[in-house]
């Protein structure tokens, strides 16, 4: 941490800051320039808030040099973390493709979609049962009934289940059913929920908030990791910008940036990051080419009749075409698509 003193700071004020730095167990490195005095605070600073020094008399500005997160950082853990799912790992050579409807709507809908995405090459099944809808009047999800349907779909296809959790009161019921807890963009900084998930040992897909910086995303991951749950996967799902031709703006930079800052797997959600099914395949290919460890994609047997996110959902055939293209890009990257352990290759095969 660098504490830059005001040009007119008194020696007493500088002394007081130095004393405080030492009291925090940090070493002091003082550099007195012609105009400004800079105090370097050296040691384990990630847990010390900047505010501790910012309010002191004579302090102009405090700058953090090391990252404010630790468990999530690549410095702390140089090797890529692998998150084990049913028969494959996310974060290594294998590219996970999670697919399924936005919402679980009915038994036939989820069973049919699960079968279709499995045949097209998906390695896990998504489906929301608690839905964070912008409008309180929109469909809010089937709840536990939906979880039972997802469990049945897993039974039938062998695909592990990814479902969104919206509140810590849902933790107990969700962990009984799901393989991966999804934390939605709107809950990225729901710190009580993050702490509660940190107490579980269920894998987590943590989505980036709509207006969250990469650093804020990593700080949220740190909440879960600090609780002892180290099976965290990060997900870029588009950010809010001035551009209106797409629902969100895919921050494709976030992929190499995250891969350099953290050891956690990075997944891209091209359905939400574009908002339009016609752009999903292009951005899915881009995600893998940029180094993403997986994709989460919305697929619906009949997008026009979907109760939510129809505009951005792929039909099973379009999804199969996307998987083929993504498989080719994965190969170029020296990687391959993941296959869940219970997966039986479809007759026609896939790239």
């Amino acid at each position, binding site marked *: 941490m660098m504490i830059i003193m005001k040009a007119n700071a008194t020696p007493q004020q500088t002394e007081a800051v130095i004393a405080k730095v030492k009291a925090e167990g940090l070493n002091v490195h003082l550099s007195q320039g012609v105009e400004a005095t800079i105090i370097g605070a050296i040691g384990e600073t990630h847990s010390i808030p900047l505010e501790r020094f910012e309010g002191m008399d004579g302090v102009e500005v405090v700058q953090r040099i090391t990252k404010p997160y630790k468990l999530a950082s690549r410095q702390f853990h140089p090797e890529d973390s692998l998150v084990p799912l049913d028969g494959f790992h996310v974060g290594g050579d294998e590219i996970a493709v999670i697919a399924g409807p936005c919402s679980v709507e009915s038994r036939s809908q989820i069973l049919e979609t699960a079968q279709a995405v499995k045949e097209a090459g998906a390695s896990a099944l998504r489906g929301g049962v608690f839905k964070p809808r912008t409008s309180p009047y929109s469909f809010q999800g089937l709840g536990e009934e939906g979880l039972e349907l997802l469990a049945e779909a897993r039974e039938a296809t062998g695909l592990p289940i990814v479902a969104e959790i919206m509140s810590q009161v849902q933790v107990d019921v969700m962990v009984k059913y799901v393989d991966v807890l999804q934390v939605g963009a709107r809950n990225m900084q729901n710190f009580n929920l993050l702490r509660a998930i940190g107490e579980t040992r269920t894998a987590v897909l943590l989505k980036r908030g709509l207006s969250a910086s*990469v650093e804020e995303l990593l700080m949220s991951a740190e909440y879960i990791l600090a609780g002892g749950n180290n099976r965290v996967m990060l997900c870029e799902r588009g950010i809010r910008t001035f551009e*209106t031709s797409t629902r969100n703006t895919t921050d494709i930079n976030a*992929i190499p940036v995250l891969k350099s800052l953290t050891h956690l797997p990075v997944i891209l959600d091209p359905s939400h990051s574009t908002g339009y099914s016609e752009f999903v395949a292009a951005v899915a*290919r881009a995600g893998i080419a*940029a180094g993403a460890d997986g994709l989460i994609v919305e697929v619906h047997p009949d997008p026009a009749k979907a109760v939510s996110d129809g505009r951005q959902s792929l039909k099973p055939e379009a999804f199969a075409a996307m998987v083929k293209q993504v498989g080719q890009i994965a190969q170029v990257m020296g990687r391959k698509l993941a296959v869940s352990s219970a997966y039986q290759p479809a007759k026609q095969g896939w790239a």
Partner: protein
Amino acid sequence: MMIIMRPGAPREQIDAVIAAVEGHKLSAHPIFGVEQTIIGAVGDGHYVLKETFEAFPGVLEVQRISKPYKLASRQFHEQDSVFEFNGFTIGGTEVPIIAGPCSVEGRTQILEVAQAVKEAGANALRGGVFKPRTSPYAFQGLGEEGLEYMAEAREKTGLPLVVEVMAVSQIEMMEKYVDIFQLGARNMQNFNLLRALGETRTPVLFKRGMSATIEEMLMASEYILNGGNHKVILCERGIRTFETATRNTTDINAVPVLKKLTHLPVVMDPSHSTGDSAYVQSIARASVAAGADGLIVEVHQDPPRAISDGKQSLTPEAFAKMVKQVKAVAEAVDRKLV
């Protein structure tokens, strides 16, 4: 265009709007709802502004249905536009790569980089001689002297030249030297410059403004096309967002969106869109995977000593590696490097 009237707007106001619509040689289709009346204006209305109707009494809102640009739109020109240069085409199956330093710094520097990028697989040479620097105290470019060095580099390597034009007054002199004018992000809505470029027949590499929407970009390109210069290459170079981990945010969505909306070639500038050489290769691969028609990349033989953009410039070796990776991705999407 849909003109939505206020609830309870009297008949006279509705009739006045209908008359105005018809005055623009559009046909008016009023829909009388329980609460509100909507007037559909149908016809070739791309040149009619929303503002034309917004100020009428009783009008709540005007919504455009068709695009406000025409020459740039894929509706007007269904086939991809393909432009030919010395040694390559852009907009077709080939994915050309433009590379070179941010600024021409001196004769040896540009001759050396030109040779290096050519050997690594570049198809055109970039190099700025008039620099739009944020600070008026920063290096502003070598001007015509720089163009002479660029011309010498072309002589030696055969690479066509891409150079930024900043003002109308530079066009005549620059045309003698350059193969492609670059219109920089900061000048995307410099309409006088756009009109002047439209008068030339030199191709334009047209960069998206830092805070420009895709529609604004296409409208601005329409200025050049409308002047009769139809060789416009669009370039995504990152937009301004709240994210500070990178210099800009690469709007990768813009690649498939533009390919859908327009027939013009779309290239990516991963150097500016990330601002960090560590991320350039990843984004270059991603762009070609997303369907971009080309790349423009900053390369410098000694980035720490570059006068400008050193942090985002690749060394010739890193650039050669990037070209290799991009080649593999291009082949995976059924395209090829030149």
